[in-house]
């Protein structure tokens, strides 16, 4: 572009009236101002922190944290370091986010389909649900669910459902399978089954391609995995005379249940709150995605004699999916970031633990930095995954 301008014009216009120079100059001045502003703020911060003897450092990370954490995916005790405590928080956030995303997607899809149902009751119940949940702040909902857990009886008077499930105001205690000595033998079967499942998937894909017919290979692979792992379970039991896992029933001791698995009230309230809230938005995305598929597609499918369910499953939904994925990604990110509200209901997520670390060490700047980097990488990772999936299902135009 620059070469198209005649040479003579350059010499006749002074540089400060040359739009090309001005364009560059203005941007340089702006950049200088921004950097200088940041520099002044940074210097100010360092000066202030130095005065208070609070210079940022990461050395605290190797010091024992010495505070207890209510629940953890990995073993944790207060003698472990701050960095390990931080990882516990990270994993707790990941746990609620991953389970939450799966459940919210399932509930959201059902909700979206219900809203479009011709059944008056279904569509109106779904609409009422959407309107109520969408218009109440999430924090309020979380606190509501958490206070609801207090309505349950004390541990000693738990509601007993067939000796396997106990409901009480500290959470839900369930009978849970515990691995036995033969568990490691069975693991070989599980691993083998996984390889077999991959093989089944590949074979089916080749078959589909050869016959030039569309088809989904994943269900076959999953079925194969379940069958082989199941057979392995029976055989392991028969040969070693011991089942790889036994169901352990919880037993009430003096203060709490021992054995089984307990889902804490905090976790349950957070998960329920996040799922119910996010499902509403996912439901609306599903609804709009389905509505965006042109009416002609539906009519054509019906004309071919496909049933209502087949039309939805084979024609409408695959097309709607392409529209739904990008907005769905931002809902998944929202759910992950909203999980930081856990701090209000005593679930030790990343934000909560980082806050405690900050409070105990006084290292606000490094801790906030770590927190920001963690949430940012979690969000970027989710986006990456979803973008990859999005690219895979997009129509390839030829």
């Amino acid at each position: 572009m620059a070469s198209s301008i005649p040479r003579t014009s350059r010499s006749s216009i002074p540089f400060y009236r040359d739009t090309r120079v001005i364009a560059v100059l203005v941007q340089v001045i702006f950049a200088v101002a921004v950097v200088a502003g940041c520099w002044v703020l940074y210097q100010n911060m360092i000066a202030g922190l130095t005065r208070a003897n609070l210079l940022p450092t990461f050395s605290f990370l190797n010091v024992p944290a010495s505070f207890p954490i209510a629940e953890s995916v990995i073993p944790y005790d207060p003698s472990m370091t701050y960095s390990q405590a931080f990882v516990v928080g990270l994993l707790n956030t990941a746990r609620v986010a991953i389970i939450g995303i799966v459940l919210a997607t399932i509930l959201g899809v059902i909700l979206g389909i219900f809203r479009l149902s011709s059944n008056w009751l279904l569509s109106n119940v779904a609409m009422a649900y959407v309107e109520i949940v969408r218009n109440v702040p999430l924090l309020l909902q979380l606190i509501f669910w958490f206070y609801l857990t207090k309505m349950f009886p004390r541990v000693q008077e738990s509601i007993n459902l067939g000796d396997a499930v106990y409901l009480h105001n500290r959470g839900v205690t369930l009978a849970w399978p515990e691995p036995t000595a033969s568990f490691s033998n069975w693991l070989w079967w599980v691993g083998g089954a996984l390889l077999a499942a991959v093989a089944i998937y590949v074979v089916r894909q080749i078959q589909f391609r050869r016959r030039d017919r569309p088809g989904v290979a994943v269900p076959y692979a999953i079925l194969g995995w379940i069958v082989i792992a199941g057979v392995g379970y029976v055989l392991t039991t028969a040969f070693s005379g011991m089942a790889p896992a036994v169901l352990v029933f919880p037993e009430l001791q003096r203060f709490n249940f021992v054995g089984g698995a307990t889902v804490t009230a905090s976790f349950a309230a957070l998960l329920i709150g996040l799922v119910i809230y996010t499902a509403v938005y996912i439901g609306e995305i599903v609804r709009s995605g389905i509505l965006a598929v042109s009416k002609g597609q539906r009519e054509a499918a019906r004309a071919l004699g496909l049933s209502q369910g087949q039309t939805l499953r084979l024609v409408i939904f695959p097309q709607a999916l392409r529209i739904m994925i990008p907005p769905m990604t931002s809902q998944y990110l929202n759910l992950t970031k909203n999980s930081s509200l856990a701090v209000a209901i005593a679930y030790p997520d990343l934000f909560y633990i980082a806050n405690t670390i900050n409070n105990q060490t006084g290292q606000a700047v490094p801790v906030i930095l770590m927190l920001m980097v963690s949430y940012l990488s979690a969000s970027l990772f989710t986006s990456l995954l979803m973008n990859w999936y999005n690219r895979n299902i997009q129509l390839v135009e030829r």
Partner: protein
Amino acid sequence: MRRSLVIPLAAALSLIIAACGGAPAAPTAAPEAPTTAPAPTAAPAAPAATTGRLETITARGTVICGVNNNPLPGFASVDASGVYSGFDVDFCKAVAAALFDDPSKVEYRPLSSQDRFTALQTGEIDVLIRNSTWTLGRDGDVGLDWSPTTFYDGQGMMVRKDSGITSIDDMDGATICVQTGTTTELNLADVFRAKGLTFQPVVFPDGDQTRSAYDAGQCDGFTTDKSGLVSSITLLSNPADHQILSDTMSKEPLGPSVLQGDPKWADAVNWITYATFQAEEYGITSANLAEFSASEVPEIRRFLGIEGELGKGVGLSNDFAARVIKHVGNYAEIYNRNLGPDTPFNLPRGLNALYTEGGLLYSPPFR
């Protein structure tokens, strides 16, 4: 065109970064300083010459005091018309009385246990008087300076009477409610680890939530400072069902704190606190202050600022102690008003008596 812009921009940026990294202040940055950072704490070039906190407060006309955000009757609570009262609140008033001769010149900032030190670090508050424990970690790493302890406390445990728990040793496997960002959270873990007991913590960021979770039976025990337990028990739905175990799990010296690095302001808060101790030692109360003002005893005349220039040395008026006594009273008056025999708590003075009566309160001489 677009591409051609990137290179000069990058060049300019790297130049600036290089310039700023160098020792002398970048000429481009210097003139921006006053406009981008108008806060009084700015002027990064000369940290030594900054305005002290005491001058800032005097210019502002009020002292900003961090107090408990949850009602802790006896220490800090707000009534329906927004009036703060309590032991900690009275020390906020004492600071205002000493500075402005008016105990109402206090702006209260309700703070949670997690936010309190950050509020002090960022300069949002001038002084923190929020039943906070003096520890080495907080004095050092967290960057606080502590004033003399106003309340010697220890961590206790509250349980239901029908639980059959008589000491902490009975609590193996129990679920315990505790507030985060506190020393009690750390002591709890330490004590149980030392005793080889297990426990399931339920940790809340908020004192009210901690108490109500315990009240609902979500926890077998509720731990905090004993004074906090005594205060909280009155807020439970059925106080008679609960008891405080006799075990004391830690030392909890509670007192005012200020941000490290401003010795002048720290001195002022220290000596305002000491004045309440010293007044009790002399027997000077808000009621008999007038009689003492006529005293001929030199040390009392000095203490009340009638002669000498004692206050000036710590940046206060010479009669600052008299102002504190006039408006808030001596330590015994503050204690009895909030926690004494005429209150629902009726806490014995214990360690919080003067050294002359077997307690730990001891003021260095005012001279």
